[in-house]
């Protein structure tokens, strides 16, 4: 699953640690989501989308093989 967290994070001037603190997970989890090693739960995805004030499908996108 493709995501635009890294881009949005840069736009909002947030570090991985800042975003992690805001959504209540570890920095490693945010890093793994950005590098597509981990697919977040619906709850976490919604929390991240809320931080960036974006609809979920604008932040996460299904790829062909998903």
């Amino acid at each position: 699953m493709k995501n635009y967290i890294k881009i949005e994070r840069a736009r909002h001037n947030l570090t991985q640690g800042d975003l992690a603190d805001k959504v209540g997970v570890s920095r490693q989890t945010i890093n793994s989501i950005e590098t597509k090693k981990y697919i977040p739960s619906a709850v976490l995805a919604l929390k991240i989308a809320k931080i960036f004030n974006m609809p979920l499908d604008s932040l996460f996108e299904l790829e062909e093989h998903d």
Partner: protein
Amino acid sequence: MKTKSRLIPKSKMWISLTIIFLPVLILIFLKSADFHELLDFSKLSKITASISLIGMFLLFMTQWTKDDGDEMYLQIRLTAVLLGVITGITTLLVSSIFSLINWLDFDYTHYNGFGLMFFILLMILSNFGQQIYSLSKQREE
């Protein structure tokens, strides 16, 4: 998901480690102190193994790093358990086949429940530890 609260805090990791190693040390002490006539070491070693296995399980349920406990770590734990189950089934299957064909004239009867459970938990812990280590090496991008 509040998984952090379900784990044993990192500061209490010593409890799990004590439960693993203390019974083994006591058993070694008793064996070296020559209590053969008073104690049944076969039964005693089974009790020791059981307590150590509980310790290994508690270690698995302990927070390993300060970040440990969110949903990704829960998934890593799940993957490690799955690997442990696969390892256990494979070990049983391979040892059964080997004992069936008497390969290498090796006695496979020592694959008892304790040994198998120890092997499964060891696989779970080593896999989990390896994943935690690789996560801790991740740099911020």
